[in-house]
């Protein structure tokens, strides 16, 4: 990481409240969040459910507006979703009426790229995510892991500045999950794009992140930020490194009380 900080996204004193009908005071999902996301870094938002990590991601994407505070992208306030910040969703959100190829082309079509050109770009991207040969399949014809690869290709297609990933591997089985973690580590190393990645898996966070933002709940806020001192590109062998295990343990200890509270397991001794 360079000495001078090259800040790409700046989250300044952001709070988000959801009004709930009936209740006088809504739900405070986020409170006093300050965060700087550096150009080219892989930033992981980690925390138990209800800590507002997905809300924060949706705010950065522009799907939601902060109740107070501001979010700046290269110095300009985020006004709504745009193609400089594309999102990979947990439930894929592929368009089921389009083939894999058409899904990947969508963002290019939105830019007005001619059909022949975007076909080529989409094909190249599909080969990057190892989906060559599945271009003409519909999403319901391919596996969950393949859907998420397609969704990743679709999100990269309009060459965004930042890729926002909202628990992208949460719906996948453990094996597929590990494979896709390695895949995204490779893609991030190859493209050098800024990635913001939401997860509640400590292993995933340590394997992928340059920095890990630990969040805690009620109200959601940033509790601590841990740098990850592992070399890039990340490879499977690192999972048994002492540095890897140490950080996982540290994060476990840090997050244990939150997870306990979440499962109602407060009384049991450690």
């Amino acid at each position, binding site marked *: 990481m360079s000495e001078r900080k090259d800040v790409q996204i700046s989250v300044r004193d952001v709070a988000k409240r959801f009004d709930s009908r009936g209740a006088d005071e809504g739900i405070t999902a986020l409170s006093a969040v300050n965060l700087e996301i550096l150009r080219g870094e892989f930033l992981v938002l980690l925390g138990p459910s209800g800590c507002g990590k997905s809300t924060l991601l949706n705010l950065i994407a522009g799907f939601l507006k902060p109740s107070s505070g501001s979010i700046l992208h290269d110095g300009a306030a985020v006004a709504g979703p745009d193609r400089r*910040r594309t999102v990979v969703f947990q439930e894929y*959100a592929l368009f*089921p009426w389009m083939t894999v190829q058409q899904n990947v082309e*969508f963002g290019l079509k939105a830019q007005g790229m001619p059909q022949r050109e975007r076909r080529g770009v989409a094909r190249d991207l599909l080969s990057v995510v190892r989906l060559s040969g599945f271009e003409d399949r*519909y999403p319901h014809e391919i596996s969950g892991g393949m859907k998420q690869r397609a969704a990743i290709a679709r999100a990269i297609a309009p060459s965004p500045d930042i890729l926002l990933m909202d628990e992208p591997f949460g719906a996948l089985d453990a094996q597929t999950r590990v494979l896709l973690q390695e895949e995204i580590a490779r893609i991030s190393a190859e493209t050098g794009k800024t990635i913001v990645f939401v997860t509640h898996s400590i292993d995933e966070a340590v394997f992928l992140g340059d920095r890990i933002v630990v969040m805690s709940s009620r109200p959601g806020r940033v509790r601590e930020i841990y740098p990850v001192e592992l070399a890039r590109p990340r490879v499977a062998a690192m999972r048994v490194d002492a540095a890897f295990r140490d950080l996982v343990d540290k994060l476990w200890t840090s997050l244990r009380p939150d997870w306990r509270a979440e499962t109602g397991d407060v009384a049991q001794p450690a």
Partner: protein
Amino acid sequence: MGDRGINAMKLTRLSGSFRRFIGIGLLIVAWQALATFNVINPFLLPPPSRLVATFWDMLIDGSLLIHAASSLERVVVGFAAAAAIGTVLGVVLGWWPAISEQLIPVVEAVRPIPPIAWTPLAILWFGIGNAPSYFLVFIGAVFPVFINTFAAVRGLDRTQVNAALCLGAGPRLLITDVVVPASLPVIFPGLRIALGVGWMCVVAAELIAAQSGLGYLIQQSRMLLQTQVVLTGMITIGMIGFAMNAGMVWLERRLIPWKAGGPRS
């Protein structure tokens, strides 16, 4: 699954349709027998043999086709207008809650009025001929189309819309490539129901406000005491309605291939 399994499946399917055929066959045989032994008055309910002969005669002399064609033309025109206006209105009102808040009460107040109740006004406004039938078909068909389209757009998967927005979709691409195709699986059953309602409406309209068509044929034959023609007309209406529904089901499978099987993604 081995060959035997597939064969067994085919056999069950075959015997399934055969069983359905038995039901209809028994009904026809019983009906014919009751008429032959004078248990039922053949004037009030002509036997199947008489109906087949009448159907054949009217098919040969072309009268049945002419009446069917004018009914079909009316239902096509009225249905096309209802489909166009119903979907556009459904998308607009579904997408912009500010407009729908004003207009939904109007729709809900007009919707419960049976299309038949519009007949006097239709004749008053449009006279006798094709126009009142177009109008009555439209009135009957537009609500199922609108209601389904509106519900579909209202129930859109917000995540898919968000996905499209962050990929840079403008309003036009969002409507044509996301909102409309995402809504099709719900819009289409509405269209199918609308066509069925439209078909009923055209017959009702022709009973009163037309000089041709299957409804008119039935009405006229009743006055001429030709029960066998009344029944032939009714059976033709049933067959055409059945065929139209089957056609729509086929079209639905063709147009919405991603719903052919498997979960949503």
